[in-house]
């Protein structure tokens, strides 16, 4: 065979001119190589960046959100987003401010109408102490420190919903719910997939045959309609936590066949790899071969599969909750938030109710970019 280009596997460090660079490359471990390749992928880095922000929000929601998820502001119902500004006709201010709002009752409809008072500035303050919260629903840390607030009155950067709840705060809590649900769902899918795929791929024979047929069968069953049926069958009177748990389980079951297939396929191909056979012929025990030779080889692929799988989870939860079959209030999730915006009137009257969808889109994009970037970098030896 005459190579016209250098196959990547055979790529030597010739490209790194100085000798030290070369040596660095020659002695680089797998994750080092993966990282070197990954960091050249801009979209991948962008995805990772987006997700880091999400994780930050997920962990510090109480601190970052100016209000609680269910705090009502009767002074500002269905109010549009307030814009933080640095200057207006009255001049420039180093500290950002919003205008204050006064509410009056409409004498005819009796609805509360907020009006913005351009003359009064409410300055943004950082690290304010306002309402106390207990961290992470538990009693671990109690604090009243919030990232920001205003000196007087209220601030709603994303506006409020029909009950006067702050959409920014709710979006942050929803991020926590939806992402953790995704994580648990993916974990369930992954564990089942790993067990089934692992058994099929490693044991082979009858077990493999049976599991493969099972997967084939399950895959030919249209999954989402069935899961909608299952979700609908959940008793209405169940508490939100139980519904959350069941929805997670249902979503988890949604994906295990794909993961199991991939794991099986990878294991089968690994079992035939020369270096794995070499390890067997060296007298290595099964445990050693799995731990030392097979697992390191497929960890990176599994990570990619898991990352790539998240978007399905997120979108499925959003869609299920949106139509009312998934999570239900008082749980706050992206899908639940968007329930309030099911029709055209909502768009016309209060378009800011859709702000949470931007978070959904960016989360999905983040996972997709990261997944694609990782996939390209995952196998530095090919």
């Amino acid at each position, binding site marked *: 065979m005459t190579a016209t280009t250098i196959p990547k596997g055979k790529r030597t460090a010739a490209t790194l001119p100085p000798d030290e660079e070369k040596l660095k490359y020659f002695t680089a471990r797998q994750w080092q190589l993966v990282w070197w390749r990954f960091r050249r992928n801009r979209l991948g880095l962008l995805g990772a960046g987006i997700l880091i922000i999400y994780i930050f929000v997920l962990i510090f929601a109480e601190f970052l959100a100016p209000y609680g998820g269910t705090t009502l502001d009767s002074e500002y119902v269905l109010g549009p987003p307030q814009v933080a500004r640095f200057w207006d006709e009255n001049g420039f201010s180093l500290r950002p401010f919003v205008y204050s709002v006064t509410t009056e009752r409409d004498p005819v409809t009796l609805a509360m109408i907020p009006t913005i008072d351009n003359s009064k500035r409410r300055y943004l303050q950082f690290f304010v102490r306002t309402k106390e919260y207990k961290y992470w629903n538990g009693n671990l840390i109690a604090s009243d420190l919030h990232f920001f607030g205003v000196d007087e009155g209220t601030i709603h950067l994303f506006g409020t919903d029909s009950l006067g709840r702050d959409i920014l705060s709710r979006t942050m809590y929803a991020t926590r719910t939806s992402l953790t649900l995704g994580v648990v769902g993916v974990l369930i899918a992954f564990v089942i997939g790993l067990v089934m795929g692992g058994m099929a791929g490693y044991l082979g024979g009858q077990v493999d045959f049976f599991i493969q047929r099972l997967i084939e069968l399950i895959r030919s*069953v249209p999954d*989402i309609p*069935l899961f909608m049926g299952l979700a609908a069958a959940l*008793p209405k009177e169940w508490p939100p936590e139980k519904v959350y748990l069941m929805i997670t389980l249902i979503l988890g079951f949604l994906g295990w066949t794909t993961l199991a297939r991939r794991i099986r396929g990878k294991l089968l191909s690994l079992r035939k790899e020369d270096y794995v056979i070499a390890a067997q012929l060296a007298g290595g025990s099964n445990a050693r071969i799995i731990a030392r030779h097979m697992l390191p080889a497929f960890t990176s692929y599994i990570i990619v599969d898991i990352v790539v799988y998240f978007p399905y989870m997120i979108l499925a939860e959003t869609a299920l909750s949106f139509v009312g079959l998934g999570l239900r209030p008082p749980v706050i999730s992206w899908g639940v938030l968007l329930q309030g915006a099911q029709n055209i009137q909502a768009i016309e009257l209060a378009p800011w109710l859709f702000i949470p969808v931007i978070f959904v889109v960016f989360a999905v994009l983040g996972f997709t970019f990261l997944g694609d970037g990782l996939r390209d970098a995952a196998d530095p030896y090919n």
Partner: protein
Amino acid sequence: MLRYFAQRFIFMIITLLFVSVVIFIVIELPPGDYAERYAYRKLASAGQDVTEQDMINVRHEFGLDKPAPVRYFNWITDIILHGDFGESFLFNVPVRNMIGDRIWLTMALASTAILLTYALAIPIGIFSALYRHSFGDYLATFIGYIGLSLPNFMLALVLLYFSVTVLGSSAGGLFSEEFAEAAWSWPRVVDLLEHLWVPAVVLGTANTAFHLQTMRATMLDELNQLYVDAARARGIPEWKVIFKYPVRIALNPIVSYLGFDLGKLVAGAPVVALVLSLPDAGQLLLQALLQQDMFLGGAILLMISTMIVIGVFISDLMLAALDPRIRLGET
């Protein structure tokens, strides 16, 4: 070939059985049984008290006192032999009458979405692969990313907003007012087609993005195959080389996905139906599920699933027709 056909056919039957069992379980899952509701609805609405004896009578009447396998058997034989899906507790009429055209509307919607998907994804995918790293390729990739990450109800709302504000008419529904309750006629079909494109676009977008990516990736693989160079070395015109060989082979995975496409589209149907207020099976399914009208919901699920499973079977056959390696049992 015959053997392959038989194999796929048997597999289809097994799948259908499996699906029907799962749906039966779903139907029976909610707490309380049909008898309770039936009895309450019938007797309580008439102002009578429901006694234990009434319950037992009703249970016996509907065969609900029999063990689950027998109930399943009765349920499925009623469906197969008499087309009897039970009674909708929500509407108090036989499920069969409820579904009517709706299932066909859903199918028409799904088929339109699939056609739309193919019409967009295949040529753009080919273009992207041929002009890799061009501006058009990047644009297609970008649109693909967006298409995959936008929840379809969001897209529906955006299109709705657009049609109301810009076009001045609502894009909702499947028929104009004058045809909504009319009998089937040619103008009604035309009217349907005029309305179909919005939900079809909404349903098809994510799938189009997915197929676009698949098409592009397989095309890139196939373009590197030796047989492409071999064809060029025979002096075949470039367009013919591309369309006769790599394009033809890259179509195989798309065809093999037909069944799954149907599944994905049908799954999205209830959501879109809700936003666009479509009078199709998706909307009815959603209503039934939300109200836990399980006989109605189960019936629609069963019909939809059957169509998908048949779709999978057909795509298996089409793939065999397209790919001699499968037809001749090579792989």
